[in-house]
């Protein structure tokens, strides 16, 4: 375990990895010193996730070697990586849905037998880092944000010497991000090396002392991000500055989506009850709902999309029509389009091709007498791919073969091309890089410009401030009053978000 001073804790030399149709990593080298926070930035499909899986031993490189304290890790496996002290917080979580939080953590900690003590440790760790979790809860009942908390806590409990974090902050409040950064800085000062993968360039500038930029699987630069600007980092990453979403000045029209004093107990025992939620989205406006996940967003969205049909008919109205008890298809007929936060499994069927996934929410002109017109759906999928710049092997590629950001572009595109009257989207840019995120935001604004009502549920405040005309904050199942963006500030919204988060842990 002892290495001469100056030896990097982790060094990658000439790593290459080819997948069918794409060279994911091309001769990549980088090194991380003990106690260094090293940023890894790059667009979707730039090869960041593949590179990290190689470090973690989950994927074997075609060429190159991984050095740990100066010595190669030859027969590399995740178990070995963890024994060596490499911990990873995955972007696509490696959690077990039907097990409890405590059991999930236990699986990653060989040698722990005291389950009651572990549950206390988990909750204490969560408390300490501002990541509240209930150790006895089953993972399937947790929101995406809560699942990520479990991942982070599980990793920290392993006392890693190198911590890999793949887009860890996208589901945290601004205050919680600050707390997490404080934690990471403290870990680094104790000698833990951190590899921080993010598309949020501001965060990389605030946190990292060194950064490696990947583009198209190759290293395009290594820099001290504190000496760079967001614009210069962007240029290294995508070769251009991302455009900001801009819309024409709009006059809001008729109310197209109305939620009227909706109170509803949760479907799942561990869900959040909604308490007198009211909101209105008019034609030609973008309304945002901010909040830490797990505060009732999922429940509200299910009631809007029609997956949950228990609402009184008049409490959910689409263009004036009461639809509280109607199903998904009926609401779609009223002009509703919905993009859920889970892309695989809910937004798209993982094993089906993109063209078949297109068919799921489109009907007009794609079938004749119940028979699918193969050429029409392939053509439609191809047009979505072209318009939204989706990086994929083609319109028949399986949905699960796409990276998270590219699949999101496709799913958003699939709904946007229908020109829906009401468009509801959850976490539109979660895990999506700056270039693709800007693209998606621009489309949302353009949709409102064209007269649609757009509702965006997001945990990224920057995004909401950029594209929304008005905001609500959801906390503990209650929705705040409407706040015009001109009167909102990050501090004010953040405080409202935190108000709900503090009451968490009381339920169960």
């Amino acid at each position, binding site marked *: 375990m002892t290495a001469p001073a100056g030896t990097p804790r982790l060094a990658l030399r000439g790593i290459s990895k080819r997948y069918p149709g794409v060279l994911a990593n091309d001769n990549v080298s980088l090194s991380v010193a003990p106690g260094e926070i090293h940023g890894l930035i790059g667009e979707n499909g730039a090869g960041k996730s593949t590179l990290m899986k190689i470090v973690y031993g989950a994927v074997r490189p075609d060429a190159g070697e991984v050095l740990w304290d100066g010595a190669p890790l030859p027969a590399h496996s995740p*178990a*070995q990586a963890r024994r060596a002290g490499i911990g990873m917080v995955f972007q696509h979580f490696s959690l*077990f*849905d039907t097990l409890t939080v405590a059991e999930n953590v236990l*699986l990653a900690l060989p040698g722990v*037998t005291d389950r009651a003590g572990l549950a206390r440790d988990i909750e204490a760790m969560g408390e300490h880092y501002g990541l509240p979790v209930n150790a006895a809860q089953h993972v*399937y009942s947790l929101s995406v944000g809560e699942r990520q908390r479990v991942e982070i806590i599980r990793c920290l409990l392993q006392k890693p010497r190198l911590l890999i974090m793949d887009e860890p902050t996208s589901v945290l409040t601004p205050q919680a991000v600050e707390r997490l950064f404080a934690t990471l800085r403290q870990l680094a000062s104790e000698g833990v090396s951190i590899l921080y993968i993010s598309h949020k360039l501001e965060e990389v500038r605030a946190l990292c002392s060194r950064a490696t930029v990947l583009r198209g699987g190759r290293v395009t630069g290594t820099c001290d991000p504190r000496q760079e600007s967001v614009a210069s980092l962007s240029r290294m990453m995508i070769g251009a500055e991302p455009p900001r979403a801009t819309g024409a000045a709009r006059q809001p029209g008729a109310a197209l989506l109305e939620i009227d004093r909706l109170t509803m107990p949760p479907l799942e025992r561990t869900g959040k009850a909604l308490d007198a939620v009211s909101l209105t989205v008019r034609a030609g406006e973008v309304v945002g709902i901010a909040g830490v996940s797990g505060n009732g967003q999922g429940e509200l969205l299910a009631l809007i999309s029609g997956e949950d049909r228990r609402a009184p008919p008049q409490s959910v109205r689409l263009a004036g029509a009461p639809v509280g008890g109607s199903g998904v298809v009926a609401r779609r007929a009223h002009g509703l389009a919905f993009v859920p936060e889970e892309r695989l499994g809910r937004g798209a069927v993982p094993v089906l091709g993109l063209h078949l996934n297109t068919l799921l929410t489109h009907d007009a002109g794609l079938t004749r007498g119940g028979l699918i017109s193969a050429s029409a759906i392939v053509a439609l999928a191809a047009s979505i791919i072209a318009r939204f710049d989706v990086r994929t092997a083609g319109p028949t590629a399986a949905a699960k073969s796409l990276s998270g950001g590219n699949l999101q572009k496709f799913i958003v595109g699939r709904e946007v091309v229908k020109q829906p009257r009401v468009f509801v989207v959850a976490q539109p840019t979660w895990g999506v890089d700056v270039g693709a995120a800007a693209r998606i935001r621009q489309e949302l604004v353009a949709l409102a410009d064209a007269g649609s009502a757009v509702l965006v549920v997001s945990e990224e405040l920057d995004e909401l401030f950029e594209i929304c005309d008005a905001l609500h904050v959801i906390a503990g199942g209650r929705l705040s009053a409407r706040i015009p963006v001109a009167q909102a500030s990050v501090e004010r919204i953040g405080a409202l978000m935190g108000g709900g988060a503090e009451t968490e842990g009381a339920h169960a």
Partner: protein
Amino acid sequence: MEQLAALIAATLSAGTPLLLAGIGLLVNERSGVLNLGAEGMMLIAAAAGFAVGFHTGNPVAGLAAGALAGVLFSLIFSALAIGLATNQYATGLALTLFGAGLSAFAGLAYVGKSVPFKSTFEVPGLSALPFLGTAFFKLHPMVYLALALTGLVAWVLARTRAGLVIRAVGESPESAHAIGYPVRLIRVGAVAFGGACCGLAGAYLSLVYTPLWVEGMVAGRGWIALALTTFATWRPWRIALGAYLFGSVTMIQFALQAEGVEIASQLLSMLPYIATIVVLALISRNPAFIRLNMPASLGKPFHP
């Protein structure tokens, strides 16, 4: 009264092979592997166990041989379905057909032969109790062993790390692989346990329950054990409930037939199957409960 006690004893004996096989297959399936070769494994083990018991005159050797045959047969399945990631359904079906043919061929020399093993043992002191003695304490040790195994498996799955790892592998082999567990090795182990249990069940049939060799003598019990795991929502004690329910209805319909009840015997023979499925379907109709217990990766091949 004595009749009822005899019926209880007969129920426990008849339910034991189903319980043994069902518990083995439960562990098997909790790891995410569906082995439709259960019937074939039981047949092979019944033949192997009978042959060894016949030649050695030792029932314990016969049972051990049955378990070993089950393990070996399950390893064929593992090599194909886990090692080469072939389709689990097709592989299991092939195994059942293979087992039926091989056991008939290997058992040719033993057709009509029987083994002279005792099928009941008296528990000292307790077997003299009125009613209870006949009902519960004049049985074959395998009956108690099967119950003990059920308790052990329930405890291991719910309370130990080994059980947690098996459930995790069945839930999401990708996640288990990602945090460093040898998914395929764990699955081979679980399938081998299933093979050993099915083997014991098969050998119990040919050495204890009906101590003679008849071609195809497992008579669909492998399939019933497979169905039990599903209807019992992968819970050990519910498998015991289903197995004994099946055993009791089997015995009751025998008794009814013997009494000459005016119902077609074919209809009576269906009763155990219908009763078992109806009862287990009723107690497991809560979808959230099934979701919580069903191994999510069941039947899907895993490519690391």
